[in-house]
């Protein structure tokens, strides 16, 4: 592959991720509206929000780290997008793999921690400590699932993972070969996206959106962009591991939207758990399922 081709892919992959991610943000709000028997926001609402936030006249910054933290969070996701294969574009996914991705997925939370730390808002600090606790909770089933999938397909390379599943058809998809891991992964996804019942660190009514409490204007805009990347990445990663990636963009988009729609729909039916309840729950059921799945994979 020529250098120009690779460069185009590296620019295009985050851009596509951003556009699809914005559509997922819209889907989140539409699902919520439909479940509450409302009409919901218009089609371009997430775009309006992001443009408006970036065009605020006064931007309240609390210092250099506040700004750098958001850059780290969004930048880490831009890096992640070049490492996950999508139909027709592999970027540098060959060089990456599941292990690198699972490390990179933690960087946005750490970047956010950096930024929130400087805001010195007690709600932000509480939200942050909860976000880190949540990360501690969901990372254990997540790593077990990643390990199980890698063992099942005998590879950590995402491009190979997709190729193997596509060569064998639906029968070799991760979700058919090892449904236990797929269920544990979906459970982990709910916690990873920070949606109810695991919405402990946003908690608008309790700690005023936690880490986002001091974020206005371009900072909140950056977080909107980050969230759109987060939804997209979660959908693509799950699709790659369990649903055979995408043969073309049509089936690929259907798959990732369905995957993301599941946690978002569940979210609107639950209130919020307390932190310790969430850790107890996430360390128990998805871990048990993932361990059983691991046994199935190893045999």
């Amino acid at each position, binding site marked *: 592959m020529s250098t120009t081709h690779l460069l185009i892919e590296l620019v295009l992959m985050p851009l596509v991720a951003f556009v699809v991610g914005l559509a997922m943000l819209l889907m989140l709000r539409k699902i919520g509206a439909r479940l509450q028997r409302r*009409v919901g926001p218009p089609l371009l609402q997430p*775009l309006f929000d992001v443009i*408006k936030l970036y065009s605020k006249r006064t931007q309240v910054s609390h210092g250099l780290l506040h700004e750098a933290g958001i850059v780290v969070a969004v930048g880490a996701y831009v890096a992640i997008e070049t490492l996950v294969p999508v139909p027709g574009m592999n970027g540098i996914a060959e060089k990456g793999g599941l292990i690198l991705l699972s490390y990179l997925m933690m960087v946005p939370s750490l970047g956010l921690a950096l930024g929130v730390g400087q805001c*010195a808002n007690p709600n932000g600090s509480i939200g942050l400590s909860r976000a880190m606790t949540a990360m501690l909770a969901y990372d254990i089933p997540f790593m077990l699932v990643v390990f199980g999938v890698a063992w099942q397909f005998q590879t950590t390379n995402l491009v190979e993972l997709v190729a193997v599943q596509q060569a064998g058809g639906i029968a070799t998809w991760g979700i058919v070969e090892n449904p236990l891991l797929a269920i544990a992964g979906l459970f982990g996804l709910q916690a990873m996206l920070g949606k109810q019942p695991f919405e402990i660190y946003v908690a608008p009514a309790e700690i005023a959106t936690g880490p986002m409490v001091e974020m206005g204007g371009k900072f909140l805009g950056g977080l909107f962009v980050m969230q759109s990347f987060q939804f997209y990445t979660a959908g693509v990663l799950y699709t790659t591991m369990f649903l055979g990636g995408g043969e073309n963009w049509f089936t690929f988009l259907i798959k990732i939207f369905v995957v993301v729609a599941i946690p978002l729909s569940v979210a609107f039916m639950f209130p919020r758990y307390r932190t310790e309840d969430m850790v107890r729950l996430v360390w128990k059921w998805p871990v048990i399922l993932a361990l059983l799945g691991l046994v199935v994979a190893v045999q």
Partner: protein
Amino acid sequence: MNDFPLPVRAERSNPLARVFDELIDFCRARSMFMLHYCTGCGAIELPPAMTSRFDMERLGIQPMVTPRQADILLITGYVSIKTLKRVILTYEQMGSPKYVIGICSCTVNGGMYWQSYATAKKLNEYLPVDVYIAGCMPRPEAVIEGLRKLMGEIKAGRANSWERYFREYDRYLAAQQNLFGPNWQTPTDIIGEARDYQLYGPGTEGRHTELLQQHQVPLQPLRMTLHSDVEKSS
């Protein structure tokens, strides 16, 4: 009241820049994050306006929980003197452009609390209010109508009364000092912000800001103490 008319935004000559300005005004109108400071009974009409019957999210209006994230400060009901202090603190923390909507008669002229010693009568004296929605209480339709009016003003680029707070800070501070006493001080440095964002006007500084600067205590970061430290010192 209007001693210093606001400078009208000149249309930029570059057609692309004009399109850009219009796009931004459109997006500002179509995405309004609302912080509702529910001080009185008018708050009861907001849930129906937000939920399935009237659904404000259709218009891009959604509630936010902190002043930093919000564009609209919605004050629903009477503002007592104690409440007004909080309202002003909240307003000053919001990022501009910011808009204030006063709902119910109480924000217009004190309403049924006209004779109360503890109620601020006209909200407009302390904060630049964009839209008043009169009524006791206004129905959700009226609330949405008021918000739509604000949307139209923003889209036309006319809703810039938030600049007044920077350009005529002395006048607003005068009313605040009149009510809260001469020692009134907020954590936000309005004059500094006005200078920084080129919003400094002839009315930004005056007699009352001088009084403020005489007694103003510079903000100190909060001292972080562990529980054991507190016990030792006490």
